[in-house]
């Protein structure tokens, strides 16, 4: 077979193949190098003191407990805000909407929201929540900003999941005399829980990785905040990513920065794994 091919073609073939393998190899080694380097530089500096205290100027110690807590607070507040809105919007698009044009406009708006860079969200969040609604630089302002940012993710995953619910379920429920809202509450929503969970995981991933949108909305403070303080206006706090940025860029404390980066990497890995598992479960249901 191969004899019939001219030499030039064979060489070209081999070169292209080689280049493909090389680029895939390059990407893999890039990731491995990245992970290896960050863990190598970061893990030696992760200590119990680092993750369980707040920074103290008096003792000259650095701790990232406030940043861990702030990250958690922002994740929770963001999800609490965005979940009802996103799931509601998806349900409207899939179950209620009759006007095709309106659906198209909403979908266009969702795509637009997904494409806006985070620095613009940060800026608008600052104008809107920090100044206009006078929440001050605070976790609340940051969470509200991120809620708008993650809205497209939740809408999309919920919508995809809604599409997998068989029409017969809806017709059966309606045929038995259930109202539409009753049908959605008892039949449709339980079927799309896994889609909603996937959306949550992806949103958590975005929130954990976000920094530009939080810089001017949630601020750079490193104080320990209690739960009631976290939901109050005016209490600023930096998440892990923002803290990492500040330690690396503004203070030159690269050991701390790498320790935080290592923690962030592990978090990213866990989030990716859970998203994969959720996606597999979604597929099983579909198949």
């Amino acid at each position: 077979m191969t004899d019939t091919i001219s030499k030039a073609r064979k060489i070209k073939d081999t070169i292209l193949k080689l280049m493909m393998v090389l680029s895939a190899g390059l990407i893999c080694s890039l990731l491995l190098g990245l992970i290896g380097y960050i863990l190598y530089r970061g893990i030696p500096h992760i200590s119990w003191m680092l993750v369980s205290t707040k920074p103290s100027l008096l003792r000259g110690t650095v701790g990232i407990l406030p940043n861990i807590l702030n990250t958690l607070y922002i994740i929770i507040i963001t999800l609490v805000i965005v979940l009802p809105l996103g799931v509601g919007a998806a349900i409207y698009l899939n179950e209620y909407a009759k006007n095709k044009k309106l659906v198209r406009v909403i979908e266009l708006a969702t795509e637009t929201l997904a494409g806006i860079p985070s620095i613009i969200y940060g800026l608008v969040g600052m104008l809107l929540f920090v100044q206009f609604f006078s929440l001050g630089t605070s976790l609340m302002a940051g969470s509200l900003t991120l809620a708008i940012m993650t809205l497209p993710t939740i809408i999309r995953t919920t919508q995809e999941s809604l599409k997998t619910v068989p029409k017969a379920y809806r017709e059966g429920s309606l045929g038995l005399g259930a109202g539409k809202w009753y049908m959605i509450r008892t039949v449709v929503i339980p079927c799309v829980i896994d889609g909603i969970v996937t959306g949550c995981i992806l949103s958590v991933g975005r929130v954990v990785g976000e920094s530009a949108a939080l810089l001017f909305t949630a601020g750079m403070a490193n104080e320990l905040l209690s739960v009631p303080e976290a939901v109050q206006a005016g209490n600023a706090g930096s998440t892990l990513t923002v803290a990492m940025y500040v330690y690396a860029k503004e203070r030159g404390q690269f050991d701390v920065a790498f320790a935080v980066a290592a923690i962030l990497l592990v978090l990213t890995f866990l989030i990716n794994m859970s998203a994969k598992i959720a996606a597999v479960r979604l597929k099983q249901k579909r198949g």
Partner: protein
Amino acid sequence: MEKIKKTARWMERAMNLLFLVCGLLTILFVVLITIFLLISGIPAIRDIGLGDFLFGKVWASTSAKPSYGILPFILASVYGTLGAILIGVPIGLLCAIFLAKMSPKKVSSAVRNVVDLLAGIPSVVYGLVGMIIIVPCVREIFHLPDGANLFSAILVLAVMILPSIISVSETAIGAVPKEYEEASLALGATKTETVFKVVVPAAKSGIVTAVVLGIGRAVGEAMAVMMVAGNVANMPKLFGSVRFLTTAVASEMSYSSGLQRQALFSIALVLFLFIMAINLILNVVIKKKV
């Protein structure tokens, strides 16, 4: 119908309305973002003059005789994005073709995991690694006084746009009907020739979408670029310290005031218009495909 209680019917209507409001919220947010950016961005442009603002070559916001020209930022963003695309697209595309058509299933799924993980890594982590590894390397290799420059930023951006380019173009390539391939193979083309001359052209619109998405990501990236590009408002040179549109906003926002602050909002407005243009292109491409 009469048997349904009045409260139930009332409830139905309320829920209908509630869901409609949720649906309309996305539109509201887009409108709000646009309005806030326009309101806060336009005054400075009016003060400075559109021409001086867009095409002025000097940005000296804090000097005694301030000058607000953002051409350096625009060009830096454009060059940076172009450079990232030039490096990222060939590598990403080759990798996507490899994943979709050439490699064994197990290898594909492993590499796909790698790509997903790359996509999930926070941009500040890329920035940190760029700062610690790429910047010193660039300085040593090219014998520069400082390695924080446009070239380093391009390298970091190229890595950051890889995941979106790979996953979107892989999906597009995978969606090409198998008959195309079979026909080409039956005519005597090798597997590689088939993939490059038949499958890839057939998946063109998906690949264009991937590239445009990559452009969007590169234009909008702020933190990683801030950490490796040096952040000086020069006219861009490959080995000179530069400031992008995104980093121009981020770096001065915390201490700005007056016209300077307003000018920062105007920069954000320009960036927003860039992104909207990219979205528009994306929509046109997607619509064509349907």
